[in-house]
């Protein structure tokens, strides 16, 4: 009996050791060839699996003549290696570009880092930081709703008649807003109950950054947080994060930097939130932010009367490529379903395709009319055609 027990315990012990070994191998398999902390390494298009002639068609589109869209920077990274980078219109590898709403995805990642460090949790209530929200409907708003753009605030990101009258402008520049943008948002009326309606807007990340400030509670610690928690470990040294007069980070915009630095955010996502062996984001954060549709977008009521901005699927300050019930196809049919993007005004784009190890960053100065905008689906179609090496 004792020898049988001994045998069982030996087998169990061996299984445990082998099992742990297997887990550690699995983790090791996910490690990149190198970490681009100091700089990105390069590879030729051909050695990374691209057809050079097909890729030229992509470049012809990205850099097409003035009069249509205007590209300023374009970078393609495959499996951690830069296979192409180009600049125009006065930009170069070290010239900072305005991120516009790419800043929202940066804000998402900073909030994720704060959750990992135990400073915030997704189910914290906004009213616990902003007593102004201790009122009907607003009292139930959580950080999760704020990240899913589903708090219910009465806020119109783009005024359909005149963009100059958009709430996204007044929330930065109005006399009662610029001194404390997050407080201005906290005082805004709610049109819906939390989680009832998805409504993309710059107000939600503003409030998220205000909550982070209040949760940290010390202005010096708060202003250093983005750098210590994320930007310095990844060596994203070009990044500038602008603030309001009360020193709250603007969150929804106000970010600046160079394309290859912003691409590191994409690489962090591809590594599931770890960087050089150190976990920066909670283990389930990347899935939550980049692959999980905001629950409010899945509600039956949401299938009708969607605003233009609401058609595309959305996670937590990242745009997704999941097909919503109300749509016939994915937002970007040419790209795989796992594509997720940071997107901003005037054509700012970072697309990440985990299944292909691809990161593409395009910064631009596009106009507002459709023919003055770069078509993102066309970009993905040409990019993926060059990777597949379709018939030339």
């Amino acid at each position: 009996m004792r020898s049988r027990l001994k045998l069982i315990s030996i087998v169990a012990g061996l299984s445990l050791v082998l099992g742990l070994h297997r887990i550690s191998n699995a983790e090791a398999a996910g490690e990149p060839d190198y970490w681009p902390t100091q700089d990105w390494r390069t590879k030729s298009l051909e050695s990374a699996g691209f057809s050079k002639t097909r890729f030229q068609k992509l470049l012809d589109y990205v850099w097409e003549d003035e009069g249509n869209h205007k590209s300023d920077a374009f970078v393609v990274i495959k499996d951690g290696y830069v296979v192409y980078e180009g600049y125009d219109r006065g930009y170069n590898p070290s010239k900072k570009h305005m991120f516009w709403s790419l800043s929202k995805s940066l804000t998402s990642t900073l909030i994720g880092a704060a959750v990992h460090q135990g400073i915030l949790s997704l189910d914290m209530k906004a009213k616990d930081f902003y007593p102004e929200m201790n009122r009907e409907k607003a009292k139930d708003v959580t950080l999760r709703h704020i990240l899913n753009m589903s708090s219910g605030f009465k806020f119109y990101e783009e005024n359909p008649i005149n963009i100059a009258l958009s709430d996204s402008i007044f929330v930065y520049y109005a006399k009662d807003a610029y001194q404390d943008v997050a407080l201005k948002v906290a005082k805004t009326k709610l049109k819906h109950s939390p989680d009832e309606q998805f409504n993309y807007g710059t107000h939600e990340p503003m409030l998220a950054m205000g909550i982070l400030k209040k949760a940290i509670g010390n202005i010096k610690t708060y202003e250093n947080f983005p750098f210590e928690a994320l930007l310095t470990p990844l060596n994203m040294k070009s990044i500038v994060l602008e603030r309001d007069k009360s020193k709250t980070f603007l969150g929804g915009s106000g970010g600046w930097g160079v394309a290859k630095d912003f691409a590191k955010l994409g690489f962090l996502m591809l590594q599931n939130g770890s960087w050089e062996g150190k976990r920066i984001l909670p283990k389930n954060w990347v899935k939550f932010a980049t692959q999980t549709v905001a629950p409010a977008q899945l509600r039956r009521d949401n299938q009708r009367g969607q605003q233009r901005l609401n058609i595309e699927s959305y996670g937590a300050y990242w745009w997704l490529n999941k097909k919503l019930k109300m749509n016939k196809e994915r937002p970007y049919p040419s790209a795989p379903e796992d594509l997720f993007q940071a997107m901003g005004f005037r054509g700012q784009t970072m697309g990440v395709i985990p299944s292909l190890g691809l990161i593409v960053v395009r910064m631009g100065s596009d106009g507002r009319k459709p023919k003055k905008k770069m078509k993102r689906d066309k970009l993905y179609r040409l990019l993926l055609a060059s990777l597949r090496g379709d018939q030339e």
Partner: protein
Amino acid sequence: MKNLIVLSLIALVSASSCKFSEAPSAGLAKEMCSCLFVAEQTEQYCRQVTRESGILANWEANYAKQQVVARGMNYVSVASMDEDSRFGCSIKTVNLDSDSQDKSNDWGNR
């Protein structure tokens, strides 16, 4: 024709009494501050951005102070670079512009 005149008058009154008429000067001060001192673009480039956006305001830069003052729609706004360059520009003040009121909103001619 009569309707057009009435609509124009309504638009004029709305524009002059708009509670957010500070936004053009505040926005311009901030964005031009960032254009010059964060993006380090040339003044010519930043002025081109202003022209393209059609903002009803004008601005002047003070390079020594890394500051931009913008005026428009009866407001004057000031934005400047933070002492710590990691934080870029922010709006410092937004006030009624008595000077521009006296001059009957002639910014378009300056």
